[in-house]
């Protein structure tokens, strides 16, 4: 759950590794120092992942005797319309939220880059939606969207905009929209603050030069701002894509995947299979598939980004 900047910093950290003068002749000490972290993480990463691969090829549920079934779990999942619905919902969710967060993030960053009364207060205050646990974010908004006595309905009704309560959380598309709103609400602060940082890293001279060349506000944005924040845009996009694919807490507390399965995404689906139906074999197969899908998504995005985008990020 590291911030988006982490990826870029890691890569540049790696290229610089070993350039600085280091303690020599202390190889054992060094190995000893990293041993606790390395072993803990290896133990809790390699073993569980291996275990998940093993279980994914077996029937492991309270109903049937454990048994090796090869790729049957994977075939069942891919053949299941429930899974396909969840996969489509997840893809749709990511396809809506990631671009939305990028566009809004740029707009908010541009806004925060302007001087106005209350600018600092807004910058500090916007950490609130980000800082609270995601389950709490879901709950807060559940009270707003609630069908029968939610705050939004009460407000809209009192002002006279609606004359009967809107079923926000029990109408499939409205419920989907609600999840998007809550996700954007809690993710936008981080996205904007990182884009703001990138924005402020652009030298003023570039803007001046563009103005001299006769570029208008929009021209300056295209010629100077956009190239300047592009590396950060890529990082934010990557980070938010991962967050969107693995989003679980908000769905859990806001809609419980419903109405029906309208907001059931692959993570929630996996949760239901593993811990409600206790089908660990299938749950593991799902988990492997999610891990692979995220990996593919990351690789595709890294491929798609301009060369050197990540390394340039450290100015």
């Amino acid at each position: 759950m590291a911030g988006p900047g982490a990826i870029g910093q890691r890569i540049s950290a790696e290229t610089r590794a070993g350039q600085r003068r280091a303690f020599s002749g202390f190889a054992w000490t060094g190995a000893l120092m990293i041993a606790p972290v390395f072993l803990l993480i290896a133990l809790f990463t390699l073993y569980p992942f291996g275990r998940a691969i093993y279980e994914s090829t077996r029937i492991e549920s309270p109903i049937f005797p454990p048994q090796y079934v090869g790729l049957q779990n994977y075939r069942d999942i891919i053949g299941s319309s429930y899974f396909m619905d969840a996969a489509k919902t997840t893809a749709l969710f990511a396809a809506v939220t990631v671009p939305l967060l990028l566009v809004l993030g740029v707009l908010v960053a541009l806004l925060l880059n302007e001087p106005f009364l209350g600018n600092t207060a807004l910058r500090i205050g916007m950490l609130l939606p980000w800082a609270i646990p995601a389950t709490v974010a879901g709950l807060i908004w559940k009270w707003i969207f609630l069908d029968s006595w939610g705050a939004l309905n009460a407000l809209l009704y009192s002002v006279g905009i609606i004359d009967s309560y809107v079923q926000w959380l029990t109408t499939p598309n409205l419920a989907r929209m609600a999840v998007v709103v809550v996700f954007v609400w809690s993710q936008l602060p981080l996205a904007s603050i990182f884009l703001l940082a990138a924005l402020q890293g652009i030298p003023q001279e570039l803007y001046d030069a563009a103005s001299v060349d006769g570029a208008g506000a929009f021209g300056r944005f295209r010629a100077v701002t956009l190239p300047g924040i592009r590396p950060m845009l890529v990082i934010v996009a990557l980070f938010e894509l991962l967050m969107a694919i693995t989003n679980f807490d908000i769905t859990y507390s806001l809609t419980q995947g419903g109405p029906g399965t309208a907001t059931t995404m692959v993570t929630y689906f996996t949760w239901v299979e593993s811990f409600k139906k206790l089908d660990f074999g299938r749950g593991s197969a799902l988990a492997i598939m999610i891990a692979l899908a995220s990996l593919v998504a990351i690789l595709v995005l890294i491929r798609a980004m301009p060369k050197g985008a990540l390394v340039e990020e450290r100015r």
Partner: protein
Amino acid sequence: MRRSAGRRAIVYAGAILLAVFWFSPFALVAVGSVIPEVNLLSFPPDWFRDPPTLATYRYIFTGEVPASYEQRGALRSMVSNEVRDVPRAIANSFIVAAAVMLLNLVLGSLAAYAYARIRFPGRAATFNFILMSRLIPSVALAVPYYVIIQQLGWLNTYRALIAIYAVLTLPFTVLVLTLAFRGLPPEIDEAAQVEGASPWRVLRDITLPLALPNLVGAGLFAFMLAYSEFLFGLFITTTRERRTLPVILGALSANTDVSWGMLMASITIGAIPTLLLAFPVWRFMVRGLTTGAVRG
């Protein structure tokens, strides 16, 4: 640069819109927590018919059932019993998060120092491995973690949560502290080394004091993630004695007959510790991850 009136109007309109979007949910929850339940449920909505009351808070901490609930019979107060677990859950979250923070600081700074200053075989490979481990989505680890924790006999224990959260937070801590330590002038280390100080000694007496702000930031960040984590908490804890705050609130949200006044009081109480920590963490994140590009 001169700004036109139109531009200023747009900026202020945008700022107000953002402030409303981000803050009004909090205001609504705070308001909702002091409105008597009967008024919240009224239709047409009339929230302010009766004076605001702190009865919900009193119930959470003392178990004294608010007057408006008793009129409605025993059922509702029974259902709302769950909110009485909130103080306990906050304590649980604190215990777990504090232990995770401590582990992060001790183990994380050891590893970070080695990565920043010591040459040893496998340095790049293990560093990459530690960082890459976080690319596996949590949900993919949920089932195997459950099986392992079950086999260890660690279900429903603090140590299971602490171990898992440490694994989830350490990669980031190691990364941040490695960068921080590497940013310190290496000449001091070299001078100390010439004087015969071991790396342990240099780390303890020179590097750690110098990097104190980074340690605070990284530690609090780990604390916040551990305090907020939900998925693993949900299946590792099985009794109310061990449930963490996000798990209790998650359970309340799944309860269709929950009392919303109580729930909102719970949310308000539960959000306060995070909000207190949020500001230092936020400053650290912004400074640490954006390499000082943010001014003011």
